[in-house]
């Protein structure tokens, strides 16, 4: 990377791939996701698929929290709504995976907007509390089997392993095909989010994040833009929930508890709020670390799942105390150190 900025036009400055080294890295890295299924074994492939799915969900959170600055504690509930919708669309309408994902996302976006309505008058932790209420209500709602079966279709349902993308055509079944589905959806949403941050929409969001009062004075409709952030983020989380249901193979309320919210926050904060690469880094690091820790603990103790929450908790407290800007910022500092080395002045 050169030691100054040599951009001659705004288009260069705002480009996605700006430096020669980035172009080289892009070309070299591009084949990797396509080669992974042929290199790694089944367990690892499944973990990577899970990483892709989680990236989508955390990207949704990133739009709401990182861009618009609204604290949402209902990740579990949003994903559950997407998942249950997807299962119903697939098993009863037989519409296939892509319509299931879109419908799941749309319904989640709707619920997210409804629970974003309090942002009309309050902000900050009041929003956090009201979305926590949504999480609580959603858990109860999905736990209630018989009475609300008309709506959610039963507390526990299974998703077919073999599924068509649209209707019955383009059937996918194997782990590899599942991997590619997750990868493509993830790539689409990552590029969308990346591009979103370069448009006026996300600039408005950031303005509201920094100071909502000033943005209102400048003529931004704060309430409408907050709801827009809820809608976009909610859609992504819903799609991720639908994919997650397909990945697991069945839906059960115990997957979508407050622990999932905590997990996503750890991922987002570890990577660093505000940048798509931070999300990708955070999710990958935490998922791989979690896999390693779980294997390690399972060798010594029976109840390894309980330790997960402790692990996330400790990681998040340390990250927030040591480097609140996340892993990406820490890497940037290291890079800066070496660029100026040995005369750091």
């Amino acid at each position, binding site marked *: 990377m050169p030691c100054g900025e040599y951009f001659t036009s705004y288009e260069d400055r705002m480009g996605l791939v700006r430096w020669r080294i980035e172009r080289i890295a892009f070309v070299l890295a591009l084949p990797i996701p396509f080669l992974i299924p042929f290199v790694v074994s089944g367990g690892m492939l499944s973990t990577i698929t899970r990483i892709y799915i989680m990236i989508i969900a955390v990207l949704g959170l990133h739009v709401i929290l990182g861009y618009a600055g609204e604290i949402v504690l209902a990740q579990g509930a949003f994903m559950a709504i997407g998942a249950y919708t997807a299962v119903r669309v697939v098993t009863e309408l037989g519409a296939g995976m892509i319509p299931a994902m879109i419908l799941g996302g749309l319904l989640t976006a709707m619920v997210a907007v409804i629970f974003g309505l*309090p942002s009309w008058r309050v902000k900050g932790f009041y929003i956090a*509390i*009201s979305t926590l209420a949504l999480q609580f209500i959603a858990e109860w709602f999905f736990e209630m089997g018989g009475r609300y079966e008309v709506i959610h279709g039963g507390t526990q349902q299974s998703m077919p392993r073999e599924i068509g993308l649209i209707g019955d055509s383009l059937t996918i079944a194997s782990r590899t095909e599942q991997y590619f589905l997750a990868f493509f959806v993830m790539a689409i949403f990552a590029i969308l989010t990346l591009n979103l941050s370069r448009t006026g929409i996300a600039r408005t969001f950031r303005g509201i994040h920094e100071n909502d009062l000033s943005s209102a004075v400048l003529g931004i409709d704060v309430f409408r833009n907050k709801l827009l952030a809820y809608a976009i983020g909610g859609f992504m989380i819903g799609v991720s929930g639908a994919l997650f249901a397909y990945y697991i193979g069945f839906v059960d309320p115990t997957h979508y508890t407050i622990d999932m919210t*905590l997990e996503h926050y750890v991922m987002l904060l570890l990577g660093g709020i505000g940048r798509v690469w931070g999300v990708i880094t955070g999710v990958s690091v935490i998922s791989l670390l979690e896999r390693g820790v779980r294997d390690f603990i399972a060798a010594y103790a029976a109840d390894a799942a309980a330790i997960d929450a402790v*692990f996330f908790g400790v990681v998040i407290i340390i990250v*927030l105390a040591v480097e609140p800007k996340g892993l990406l910022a820490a890497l940037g500092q290291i890079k800066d150190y070496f660029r100026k080395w040995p005369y750091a002045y």
Partner: protein
Amino acid sequence: MSNIATFFEVFVRGLGLGAIYSLVAMGFVLIYKVTGVLNFAQGQFALLGAYLVAILAPPALIFLELPAALAVVVTIVVGLLLGVVLERVIFRHFIGEPVLSVIIVTLALGGIITGGIQFFFGRDSRAYPATLQFDWSVPLLFGVDLNASFALGVALSLVVVLALMAFFRYTVMGSILRACSSDQQAAMVLGVSIERTIVLSWAISIAITSVGGILLAMSQGGTSFGIYGVGILIFAAVVFGGLDSIPGAFIGAIVVGLLQEVGDYYVAPVVGAGFGEVLPMLLLVVVILVMPYGLFGTERIERL
């Protein structure tokens, strides 16, 4: 007649439950008022208190065969110490950090506590020793009895709310805490040790909260893992009463207790079991929409 009697019974139970909730809610408000930390782990502290009694009371620790009443005292002391330690180790780093960091830290703390309890002691509920299960009760109108733990809860919560209000009003330490809550920097300039006040409020808060947790467990005959749900219920209480008002927390908690019992008894048969705990959540959302600063909360005025 019997209709009125059942309603009265539901009402009394709700009152008792609300009184116990109010202990936890006041612990929450105390922390928020003085330190500005919105503690999402309050329910987990109650759970911790409830489990500590169950762990300490039976002869589980061989060298420490504590009688039940002493176990309660030890738990409260542990709560006080925990408050000190938490402030020293964790919350000191987060003075002046953005709201998000603090919220996430308390959420993480809650995860650590529930995960730790689940890992070391399992999710099963544990019965309390017989000496902690009182068989007396207070007879009231219509042949309705107030359960012993609820009666204790009502008495204790009244004592605590009055003591806290008097403490804030009439003692020097109380006015120091009030000074800190209104302007930390100004208080610091005047020679107040912020660290000490924060330690004090955490210690008192966790002690009160563990008492609330113990009483809640007693009313159920033993501790169960679900107690930490109270941490979410009290949000409804404190938002209703105003986030930084101790009498508001008390009244809000009573309302939540009543709503929960009414929801469980009258509404749940229609919409499904467990609705009692959802009804306060619906109240919460409505309150946030209609009057975000609650009954007694101070309204925040913003300007550029």
